[in-house]
C-alpha cells in the first residue's frame, strides 16, 4: 500500500504505532495537549475577572457552534432553531433548582440534568422532524424554537414572562472551569467521533442518505442519535449559564441571536471540521469584543461586513483556509 495521507483509517486504529507502546502516552502531542489543558485550568487562579469571563464566553460560543456543526457539517442537517437546546437546558436546570429549592451543591447535577433533558427533547422532537430533509427540516426547527418560546412565556409553572430566579451565588471561577471542561469534552468527543463507526454513518448520511440507507445504515436512528448528542452539549452550556447569571427568561433562552452566532462561528472556522468551530470561536469572540470596544456604534455593521467578505472569499472558513495554506494537518 502506498504512503498516502488518506490512510487515516489504519493509522487511527493504531496499527502503525502499536509497537511503540508506552512511549505513545508521552508523545510530544500528548504532552502539548496536557500542558494546554493545565494552562486553561489555571486561568481562574491567575487572571482577572474580565479575562476569565471573556474566555468562558469563548468556550460557550465554541461548544454551541460545534454542536450546530455536528448536525450541519457532519450530518448535513441545517438547524435554524438550535438555540432551543440551550434554552431547554437552561430551563431544565432552573426548574430543578427552584422547584426543589436546591443550593450551590447541586451545581453539577443540575447541569447534567440540563444536558440530559435537552437530549430527551431532541430525541422526541427529532423522531418526527428528522424524517424531513433539507430546507423543510430547517424551517421546522425554526418553528420548534418559536413554539418552545411561546410555551415558556405562557406557562406560569415555567415562570411565564418573568422567568425564573436561581439562588444568587458568585460562581465565575467554577463556571469557567465547568464550561472549559464541556468545551474540552466536546472537542475530544468530536475528535473520536470523526473516525468512529458513528462518524462514518453520519458522513454517509451527509453524502447520500438513500445510498446510506441501502448500504445497511439505519439512517433515522443515527440522525436521532446525532441530534440528541448535538442537543446535549448546548443543554449543558445552557444549564451552566443559568447558574452564572442566576436568572433565565424565555427571551434570553431562545434568542435567535444564539443560532446566528453558531452559524457565523462555524462558517468563520470551517464547516464540517472538528477544530473549525472551536478555534473559530476564539477568533470570532475576540474580534467582536475588539470591535465592540473600539467602535461600539459601528460594531454590528463591521462584523456583518467581515462575515460577508469571509463567506465570499473563504467559503471553507478562515481557520481551515489558514491551516490549509500553511499545510498544517488538521481534523
Amino acid at each position, binding site marked *: *500500500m*502506498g504512503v*498516502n495521507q*488518506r*490512510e487515516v*483509517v*489504519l493509522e*487511527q*486504529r493504531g*496499527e502503525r504505532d502499536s509497537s511503540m507502546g508506552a512511549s505513545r502516552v508521552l508523545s510530544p502531542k500528548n504532552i502539548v495537549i496536557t500542558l494546554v489543558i493545565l494552562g486553561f485550568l489555571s486561568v481562574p487562579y491567575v487572571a482577572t475577572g474580565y479575562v476569565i469571563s471573556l474566555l468562558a464566553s469563548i468556550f460557550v460560543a465554541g461548544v454551541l457552534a460545534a454542536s450546530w456543526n455536528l448536525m450541519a457539517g457532519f450530518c448535513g442537517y441545517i438547524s435554524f432553531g438550535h438555540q432551543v437546546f440551550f434554552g431547554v437546558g437552561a430551563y431544565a436546570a432552573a426548574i430543578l433548582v427552584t422547584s426543589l429549592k436546591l443550593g450551590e451543591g447541586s451545581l453539577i447535577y443540575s447541569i447534567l440534568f440540563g444536558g440530559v433533558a435537552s437530549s430527551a427533547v431532541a430525541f422526541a422532537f427529532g423522531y418526527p422532524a428528522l424524517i424531513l430533509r433539507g430546507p423543510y427540516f430547517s424551517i421546522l426547527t425554526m418553528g420548534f424554537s418559536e413554539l418552545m418560546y411561546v410555551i415558556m412565556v405562557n406557562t406560569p409553572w415555567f415562570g411565564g414572562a418573568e422567568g425564573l430566579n436561581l439562588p444568587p451565588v458568585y460562581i465565575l471561577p467554577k463556571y469557567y472551569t465547568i464550561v472549559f471542561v464541556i468545551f474540552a469534552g466536546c472537542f475530544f468527543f468530536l475528535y473520536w467521533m470523526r473516525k468512529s*463507526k458513528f462518524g*462514518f*454513518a453520519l*458522513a*454517509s448520511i451527509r*453524502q*447520500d442518505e*438513500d*445510498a*446510506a*440507507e*441501502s*448500504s*445497511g*445504515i*439505519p*439512517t433515522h436512528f443515527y440522525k436521532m442519535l446525532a441530534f440528541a448528542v448535538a442537543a446535549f452539549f448546548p443543554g449543558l452550556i445552557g444549564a451552566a449559564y443559568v447558574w452564572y447569571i442566576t436568572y433565565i427568561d424565555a427571551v434570553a433562552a431562545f434568542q435567535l441571536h444564539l443560532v446566528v452566532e453558531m452559524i457565523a462561528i462555524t462558517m468563520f472556522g470551517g464547516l464540517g471540521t472538528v477544530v473549525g468551530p472551536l478555534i473559530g470561536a476564539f477568533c470570532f469572540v475576540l474580534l467582536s469584543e475588539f470591535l465592540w470596544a473600539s467602535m461600539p456604534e459601528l460594531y454590528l455593521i463591521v462584523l456583518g461586513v467581515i462575515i460577508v467578505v469571509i463567506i465570499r472569499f473563504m467559503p471553507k472558513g478562515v481557520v481551515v483556509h489558514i491551516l490549509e495554506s500553511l499545510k498544517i494537518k488538521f481534523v
Partner: protein
Amino acid sequence: MITNQNNGDALLVLQNVSKRFGGLMALSNLNCDIPRKKIVALIGPNGAGKTTLFNTISGVYRPTTGSVVFDSVDISGMRPHAICKMGIARTFQIVRPFLKMTSLENVMVGSMFGTERGTGFKEAAEKGKELLEFVGLADRMNTPTANLTLVNRKKVELAKALASNPKLVLLDEILAGLNPTEVEAAMDLIKKIRDSLGVTVFWVEHVMDAVINLAEHIVVLNYGEKIAEETPKGLLSNQTVIDAYLGEDYIF
C-alpha cells in the same frame, strides 16, 4: 416458456407484487421466482418498471399489494437498511458512491453496516481490500471516489454491495455507459460474483449481447407486467418480446 418453478428453494419469490403511484400501475400482479445461485436478467423498455421493481425489493417502496419473500421471510414493508442486513445488496442505476470517502472507506461502510452483525474497523478494512482486489481496483484503494472514472465508481459500488455479504445482489444497469472493453471485463466480474462468491445476481440491463451471453434466466417486463420469462435462446424467438422490446431487426 419456463413456468414458475414452484419449488420452495427459490431465493426470492415475488407473489402478486403491485406498485401503484397514484393512477399509474408501475407494477401489476408480478409473480416471479429467482432461483439460488443463478444469474437472472430483468429486461424491458424504458418505463417498464424495472427500477421500480428493484426499489420494491430493496425496501425503498412498499408494495401496494402482494409480498416479497426472501429466503422464506416476508420482507415486504421492511426498511431498506434491514433488507440489506437480510442479504440483499444493490447498486444504483446512476452510481452513488460516497464521493468524499476513499474507495476503501466506501467499501468499509458496506461491511460495517450492511452485514447482519456489523463488523469492526479492522475487519472491515481487510474485507474492503479483499473486495477491491476482487473487482480490480486495489490500486485505487485510497483515492476519493470523486476522483474516479465512471467505470471505477461502478466497481466501488459493486464492492460496497458485496461487502455486506449478500445472498442476492441487485445490479441496476451496471454496464450502461461503459466502453466495449469495460463491458467485457464487467461481464467476467458478474460471472465471478456468482461462481466464486456464490451470490445470486438479479440484473437489470439494456446491453442485450451481455444479457444473452450471461443470464441463465431472463424476465421481461412491459408496462409493469411480466410478459415473458425465458432462457436466452427462447427469448430471441419469443414474438411478444420482439414486439415489445427487441424489435424485428434484432439479430444476435
